[in-house]
C-alpha cells in the first residue's frame, strides 16, 4: 500500500499540522511518502524524513511559488495520476481541505474531510467529526485512491526516522491556474471590531455605570482587545448598542472572552458562546456564566479587573 501525505507549507515554512497527517498515515501503513509543492519546500525533506517519509516527492513549477488552491489541487491530482497511491492524506486545515477538495474534483474521486480514525481495506471505514466535533460520523469510502484529511489535533505528531529519499516529480501545470494564486498579502487592518476581536472584555449590569467601564477598557487595551457588554448595560444607556454582545447584538468569537459580572442570560450567551475560551469573573459561583466558562474567578469585578491590569503592568511594564 502506498500512502502519500500532502505537506502544507507557506512559501517554504512548514505547517506543523502536516506532521499530524504524517503520524496518522503511519498508522495506516508504516511506509509512507510525502508530497511537497514548490521549490521553496525542498528544504523540508529532512524534517519529513524524520517524521516517517520514506520518499519525498518534490514538484517544481513557477505556479507553485506561492499558494493557489487550483494550482495546488491540480498538482496534487497530477501526482496521484503519476504515483497511483492507495491513499492521500492531508491535514484538515483551511488549505488542506481546500487543496484536497480541488484534487478530488479534478480526479472525480470522493474526499472525506476531518477524519479521526481509519479502518483501511478495500473500502475504508472512517470516523470523522461533524459540527466542529460535537458529533461523530462513521462513513465508508470507496475509491481507487482514498483522499482524506485528518482532523486538526486528532493525532499527536510523533517523529519516526525514515529514508526520506528525494524524488523529483516533473509535471506541467496550465498557466491559467495562476488566476487563483495569492496575488497580494497585506497586514491585518488596524483597529479590531467586536465581531473580529481576538479578545473581548465584557461587562454586565454589575459594572454599575458608564464610568465604571474604564478599568475594563484599560484591560482590553493592554491585551489588544475591545470591550463588549450585555443587554442590561445598553438598556441602562451605559454603552452604545454597537457594543452589545448577544442575540440582539453582536455575536463574538474571540480567542478569549473575559465576562465580568455577567450572569450569562441566554440572550447574552448565544452571542458569546462561539468564544474559544471564556473566563468568568463573578461574585456568584452558581451564575450561569461561571458554570459555562472554561475558567472562573469568584469575586467582585471592580476589584479583580484592576488587579489583573496591575499584574500585567508588573510583568510587562
Amino acid at each position, binding site marked *: 500500500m502506498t500512502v502519500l501525505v500532502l505537506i502544507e507549507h507557506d512559501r517554504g515554512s512548514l505547517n506543523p499540522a502536516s506532521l499530524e497527517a504524517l503520524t496518522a498515515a503511519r498508522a495506516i501503513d508504516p511506509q509512507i511518502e510525502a508530497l511537497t509543492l514548490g521549490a521553496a519546500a525542498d528544504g523540508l525533506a529532512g524534517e519529513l524524513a524524520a517524521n516517517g517519509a520514506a520518499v519525498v516527492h518534490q514538484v517544481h513549477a513557477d505556479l507553485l511559488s506561492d499558494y493557489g488552491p487550483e494550482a495546488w489541487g491540480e498538482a496534487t491530482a497530477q501526482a496521484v495520476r503519476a504515483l497511483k497511491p492507495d491513499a492521500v492524506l492531508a491535514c484538515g486545515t483551511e488549505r488542506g481541505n481546500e487543496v484536497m477538495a480541488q484534487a478530488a474534483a479534478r480526479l472525480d474521486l470522493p474526499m472525506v474531510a476531518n477524519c479521526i480514525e481509519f479502518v483501511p481495506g478495500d473500502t475504508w471505514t472512517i470516523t470523522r467529526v461533524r459540527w466542529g466535533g460535537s458529533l461523530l460520523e462513521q462513513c465508508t469510502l470507496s475509491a481507487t485512491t482514498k483522499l482524506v484529511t485528518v482532523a486538526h489535533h486528532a493525532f499527536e505528531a510523533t517523529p519516526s526516522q525514515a529514508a526520506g529519499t528525494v524524488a523529483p516529480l516533473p509535471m506541467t501545470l496550465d498557466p491559467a491556474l495562476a488566476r487563483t494564486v495569492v496575488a497580494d498579502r497585506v497586514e491585518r487592518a488596524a483597529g479590531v471590531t467586536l465581531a473580529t476581536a481576538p479578545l473581548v472584555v465584557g461587562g454586565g449590569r454589575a459594572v454599575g455605570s458608564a464610568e465604571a467601564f474604564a478599568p475594563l477598557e484599560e484591560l482590553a487595551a493592554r491585551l489588544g482587545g475591545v470591550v463588549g457588554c450585555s443587554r442590561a448595560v445598553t438598556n441602562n444607556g451605559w454603552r452604545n448598542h454597537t457594543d452589545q454582545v448577544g442575540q440582539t447584538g453582536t455575536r463574538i468569537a474571540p480567542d478569549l472572552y473575559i465576562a465580568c459580572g455577567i450572569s450569562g442570560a441566554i440572550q447574552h450567551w448565544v452571542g458569546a458562546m462561539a468564544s474559544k475560551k471564556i473566563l468568568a469573573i463573578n461574585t*456568584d459561583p452558581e451564575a450561569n456564566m461561571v458554570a459555562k466558562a472554561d475558567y472562573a474567578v469568584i469575586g467582585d469585578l471592580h476589584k479583580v479587573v484592576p488587579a489583573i491590569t496591575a499584574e500585567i503592568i508588573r510583568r510587562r511594564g
Partner: protein
Amino acid sequence: MIGAGIVGNCLVGHLARMGWTDMVLLDKGPLPNPGGSTGHASNFIFPTDHNKEMAFLTVDSQNQYIAAGLNNTCGGIEVAREPQRMEEFKRRMTSAKAWGIDARLVTPAEIKELVPFINEEILLGGYYTPSVSVVDSLATGTLMRDEAVAKGVLSVFANTEVMNLLTEPAPGGPRIKAVVTDRGTIEAEHVVVACGVWSPRIAKMAGANIPLTPAVHQMADVGPIDILQQSGKELAYPIIRDMDTFCYERQSSGSMEVGSYAHRPILMRPDDIPSIQASALTPTELPLTYDDFDPQMEQAIELMEMLGDAEIRYAINGLLSLTPDANPVLGETPEVRNLWSAAAVWVKEGPGIAQLVAEWMTYGYPHMCDPHGSDISRFYPHEKTEWHINARCNEHFNKTYGIVHPREQWASQRGMRRSPFYAREEALGATFFDARGWERPQWYSSNEQLFAKFPQAATPRTHEWDARWWNPVTNAEHLQMRESVGVVDLTAFNEFDFEGPGALDFLNYMCVNQVNVPVGRSVYTPLLTPHGGFRGDLTIQRLGEQHFRVITGAFDGGRDHYWFNKYLPTDGSVTFTDRSQGICTVGVWGPNAAATMAKITTDDTTVPFDLSQAGFPYGAVRDVLIDGVPCTMFRISYVGENGWEIYTNMEHGLKVWDAIFAAGEEFEIIPVGIGVYAVTGRIEKGYRLMGAELESEYNPVEAGLARPKVKSADFMGKEAYLKARQEAENGAPAAIMCTLSMDSQQCADGYDRFPTGGNEPILTLDGERIIDAKGRVSRVTTAGAGPSVGKYLLLAYLPPQHAVVGTKLQVMYMNECYPVTVEVAGAQPLFDPTDARMKS
C-alpha cells in the same frame, strides 16, 4: 423547594419571613435564570382582573415588586378594534373600581397622544391603566432568595436535577420523605413543587398529579426602532394590548416585543421539553413557528406601521403553563402529604401567590385571601387526565385576551357525568350547564308553556350580554314551583360517609355546629379554617349512632374530600367512604310537594309513609320506599319551599323520577332548572353559597350564620370564631352580609340592565367604594331576579354603618351606577321571612 423561578424564589423568601429555618432550594438550571418560563416572561402587569382572587394576588404582587424597587411603571392601554370590546372595557372599568385600580377609558385621539406611533384610525377606543408596569422577575426572585440565604435558613443548589421523590407510607396516604438529586439525597419534611411547566413530571415521581400542560406563547423582539431608541429609556411608552387580535406590543428599550395569544393552541408534554443542554436557547424558549405568527405580524404592522421595517431579532415559542380552568394549581397535593404544588403561576401574580402558599404551609390555610379557585384539590379525577387538560386548554387558550362571560360554558369534555334522569331532561328540552363534569339542566324549554300563565316572567333582557347564558323560562319555573311543585336534579351532590366510634368526635372537630344530633336528624354547619374563616359549608345527616353522611355541592366536593381526609384520625376509629358515584338525588319542592310524594311514598310495605310535619319534621332523614324503590328522604330546602331531597341508588333513579312526575301530574309538576335552585330561589331566601358569599376572608358572624350558642367541644377555628363573636357583641362585625334590591335597572340608553353578580362594586351615593374595617371591599357576590318579590336582588357584605335596612347605595355595572336599597341586613330571608312555607 424545587424550582428557582419567580415562585420558588419568592416562596423561600416568604417562608423565611414566617420563621422557617431549614430550607433547600434546588433547580436543575443555572442561576439567576434556570431556563423556565420566568426567564423569558414579558414581565408586565396589567392589574385589572374580573376574578377577585387573581385580582387581589396580582395587585399584591405588583406591590411586592414595588417594595423590591423592581417595578417600572409605564402605563398600559388595552385597545379595541371591535364594538364588543368597548363593552368589555366598561366591564373592566367596573372591576377596576371594585379593586381600587386607577383606570380610565380613552378615545383614539387620547391613545395617539400617549402612543404617537399608533394607528388610531383602526381603533374605537381604549382602556388605560396608568399603573401598568414591567417588573424584573429574575432580580426580584434573586432578592427574595438572597434574603433567605442571608438569614441563614436557606441553602441553594443550582444545576442540581431532581431524579426522584421518595415517600413513606402513613395513615391517610403516603407522606413525602426525601428528594433524590443527581448530587445526593435530601431528607425533607415538606417539599414544594414550584417547577412551572415541569411540575407534572416532578409531582409524578411521588405519585401526585399536578394538572397542567406546557403551552406555547409566541413572542418576537423586533428592532431597532428609531423612536424607541431616541426615548433613551427601557419603557418610555405605555404597553399596548391589541385585545381584538390577542396581541401585545411592549417597548423593550430600542426595540418592541410583540407577543401573541392568537395562534392555534400548541400544547406540549412535560417529558417532551428538551433538556437544558439540548436547547438552542433555554428549554422553554423553543424556535418560533413562523407560520403561526405571520398573521400577527400583519396585524401588528397595521397597528404600528414602524414595526414593518423593524428586524426580527429574537423570536420564540415560549412555554408557559396552562391548566384546565386557567387558574393556578396551589396547595398540598391530595395524593401525598406534605408535598405541595405552587404551579401554573405567572410573573404578574408570582410574589403574591408565593406569600399565599407560604401562609398556607405555615398556618394551615392562607390569611391573605381565599384560594379556592386555585386550590389543587378542586379537581375531580376526570379533570386530571392529560386528555381533559388538553381539551380544556385547547378551548381556553384563545380566550386569554378573550371576552369571557361569567356564566360562560365549556364546549369540550361535556357529558362526562350524567345523572340517571339525563334522557328525561333532554326530552324536556333541558339546556345543560357543566358542574365539574356533571351535566345539570339550567332551564327547560318545555316550561315555556308557563309564559301563558306567568306573562310577567317572559320579559326578555334587552342587552345581549345580560341575556347570554340565561333564559326567562327560569322565572316561570320559579313561579310555578312556588305555586305548585317542581323537581330539581341534584345528582351532582357529593355524599361522604363517616362511620366508626370516632366519627362523631371527628366531625365535631371539623364543624362549627353540634353534630351530635339524634339519629334521623341533620345539621347544617360551616367548616372553618384555623383562623376562623369559611373553609366549607355543608349538611350532615346522622344515619346511625356511628354513621354520618356529609352532603356537599359539586363545586366543592374535591376540596371538601381533601379537607376531611387530611384531618381524618389516624387511629382507624373513623372510616371515610365517598359514595357520590353511587347515589343520585332529586329535590321535590313546592306547596304540592307533600301531596305529590304522599301518593307514592310508603314504608317497606305498602303502608303510606307519614310525611306530616309532625311525623317528619324539617331537617329529618327517613328511609322510605318510593313506588317500591328504597330511597332516603331528607326534609330540607335551599329554595324556601316545603319538600325533600330524595336520595337513591343511581340504578333506581329513573323509576323514582318517573313515579314523582306521574304522581305530580295532577299538580302540574314541572322540572326545575339550576337557574332557580342556585340563583332565583336561593337569593330570595338569602341563602349563602360557598365560593360566593362564603370565603375564608369572612367568618360565620359576618355571614349571619352564627348560632346563638357555641358548642363546648373544640373545633377547628374555634378560638378565632369566639373572638369574632366577641367583637360583634362588643360592637358589630366588620361586615354584614346583606340582601339589596335595585331601585332602578334603567341604563343611560333607556333599557334595563341585569348585573351578573361578578364582583360589581357597591358604592356610596357619592360614588365612593365601600371598604370595611378589615380592608375588604363591598361587592356583589350573587345577583339574580327575585320573581316572587318582584325585585332584582344582590347579595353583598356591607360595613355596619351601611348594613341598615333602607340604606340607599349604588351598584356599578358596566361602568354605570344604579340605585340600590338594603332590604335585609343579615340572614333573614326577603321572601317568606319566617320560613312558614317550608314548615307547612
